[in-house]
């Protein structure tokens, strides 16, 4: 590829923009498809903006739905970048160091989705300045939601600035200076744990909802995130291996696979522990779990979903644990998709919606997302995928060029 002869920030930006958009016909179609989905989402959002959240399937009983479910899940995906950062920077693993930047790009995409989902879910998005400290009122430290705002934005900053610095250096054929970014890498490790724990505390701290008011929620969030997140990263890596020139070593897949297996097994163990607690002595507080797993008062809308999720969870874990193909990308793709989907269902609406059912007054209603709601969700997902793509494309170009220059 042609590099701008001039160097500096403007050259860096223009080159990155060019590289991120250049590609074959397939790539163009892929981008257009994403834009189309985003357009549909935007159209639905305009409608929601005008008419209010009444166009969603949410009600006063199930007051959070698809948006917050996806938000919760993608916080996990964002946090999972740490599973590459720890081995790469702390354990000095050479293989994973090659791809750590991809993990960070995925994290940025996931965080942007999170922030968008939160915005979509707000009744007064124009009033969001009420939350900005200084001009608004920030209920910190009392409200866990304010903690979440802080940690999400902080993590977004860390995860975009560190790779940006590294790429910027590499773009100028320099090695990044360790002391300039390493402290932030270590900070981001702590921060990754904190974003997911804080998001768990958002739910865990509510005695009003016994389904969430459970000390295992935070740790289980982490375990499932460290399984689902690397699964996403693995899918991205397989795609990169398939469609780009960037070398992805088989060792990388092997190592990520090992991370996934350990996390997924811990996740399943904790899931079992929760199920045991809910059903061995069935209490008043187990009603939500009963609604989720078996249905309550004839309302069974989540039952097929959760059993599919558990099935996919176990299947994915087994596929990763016993890999007869020795890291065949296709095999891994199937395993990653099944685990990802399983955790997405289980930790997304499998976690959020039963928390509201039955209501604190004992009522059971079903929640079904409307077409508009689904379109908006898809639009946000497409935006996330687009962001990840547009970040990874130039990053890979810069990394390849830097490697070539070194050798």
């Amino acid at each position, binding site marked *: 590829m042609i590099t701008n002869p001039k160097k500096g920030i403007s050259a860096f930006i223009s080159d990155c923009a060019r590289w991120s958009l250049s590609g074959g016909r397939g790539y163009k179609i892929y981008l257009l498809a994403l834009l189309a989905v985003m357009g549909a989402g935007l159209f639905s959002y305009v409608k929601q903006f005008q008419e209010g959240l*009444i166009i969603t399937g949410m*009600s*006063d*009983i199930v007051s959070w739905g698809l948006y917050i479910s996806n938000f919760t899940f993608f916080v996990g995906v964002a946090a999972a970048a740490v599973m590459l950062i720890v081995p790469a920077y*702390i354990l000095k693993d050479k293989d994973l160091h090659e791809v750590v930047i991809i993990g960070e790009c995925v994290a940025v995409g996931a965080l942007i989705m999170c922030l968008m989902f939160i915005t979509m879910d707000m009744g007064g998005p124009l009033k969001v300045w009420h939350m900005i400290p200084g001009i608004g009122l920030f209920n910190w*430290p*009392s409200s866990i939601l304010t903690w979440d705002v802080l940690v999400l934005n902080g993590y977004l900053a860390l995860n975009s600035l560190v790779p940006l610095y590294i790429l910027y250096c590499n773009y100028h054929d320099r090695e990044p200076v360790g002391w300039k970014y390493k402290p932030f890498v*270590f900070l981001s*490790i*702590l921060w990754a744990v*904190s974003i997911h724990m804080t998001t768990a505390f958002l739910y865990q701290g509510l005695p009003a909802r016994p389904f969430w008011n459970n000390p295992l929620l935070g740790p289980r969030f982490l375990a499932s995130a460290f399984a689902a997140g690397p699964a996403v990263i693995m899918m991205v890596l397989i795609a990169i291996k398939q469609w780009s020139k960037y070398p992805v070593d088989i060792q990388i897949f092997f190592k990520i696979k090992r991370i996934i297996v350990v996390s997924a097994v811990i996740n399943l163990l904790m899931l079992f522990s929760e199920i045991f607690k809910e059903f061995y002595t069935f209490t008043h507080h187990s009603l939500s779990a009963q609604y989720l797993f078996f249905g309550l008062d004839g309302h069974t809308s989540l039952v097929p979903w959760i059993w599919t999720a558990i099935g996919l969870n176990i299947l994915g874990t087994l596929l990763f644990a016993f890999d007869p193909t020795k890291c065949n990308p296709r095999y891994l793709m199937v395993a990653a998709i099944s685990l990802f989907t399983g955790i997405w269902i289980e930790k997304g609406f499998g976690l959020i919606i039963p928390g509201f059912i039955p*209501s604190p007054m004992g*009522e059971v*209603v*079903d929640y079904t997302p409307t077409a508009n709601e689904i379109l908006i969700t898809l639009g946000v997902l497409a935006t996330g995928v687009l962001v990840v793509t547009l970040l990874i494309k130039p990053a890979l170009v810069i990394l390849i060029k830097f490697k070539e220059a070194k050798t």
Partner: protein
Amino acid sequence: MKKIFLRSGLFFLVLGTVLLASQALMASGGSVMDRIHAAEEPVDTMGIESAHHLPVKTVLAQESYQGGTFRVLARKDSIMRFRCSVCHTDKKVLVSDGALFTHGDIVINHGRGNDRLACIACHDEKNRDFLSDAEGKQIDFDHSYQLCGQCHFRQKRDWLGGAHGKREAYWAGERVVRNCTSCHSPHSPAFETKMPATYSLPLDK
């Protein structure tokens, strides 16, 4: 590397402590029961001007409430053919006026089973402008609680205190409560069954 983990652990510990301490601080305001028990001085709400001027007629009750006076809604104004002594004289009555004069519209459903109360169980036999209690003491219609309280002494005790019956319009200002007969028909005191005033909330949007 170990240092970093040590420090990070410490950082989280401090963070957690700060969070918990701040929460504990906020919760340490003491329960509302402590505040209630600590409040022993009567509060004068007579200054709330908007809580004066009831549009209905009241009379000073002949009982005391927490050592002070209170008012009850007047009854006599709402009795259509008061004063009773206008009709209840020794004059003879024409048969044609009988339906009007015999209170045929009144059904007594007061008292358990076959022990329905008779009219003169409450109304004074001699002076129809008054009620009379079991000892024959005349009781004004406006102060019927004195009569009802003979049997319903528990309800009367609660009513005097404020756990039975209700205040009229204002929580503040002079205490004005409803009379027994404001809510209960004296002849058929139980509440009737009826359809609710409205539907309850539809839960699925």
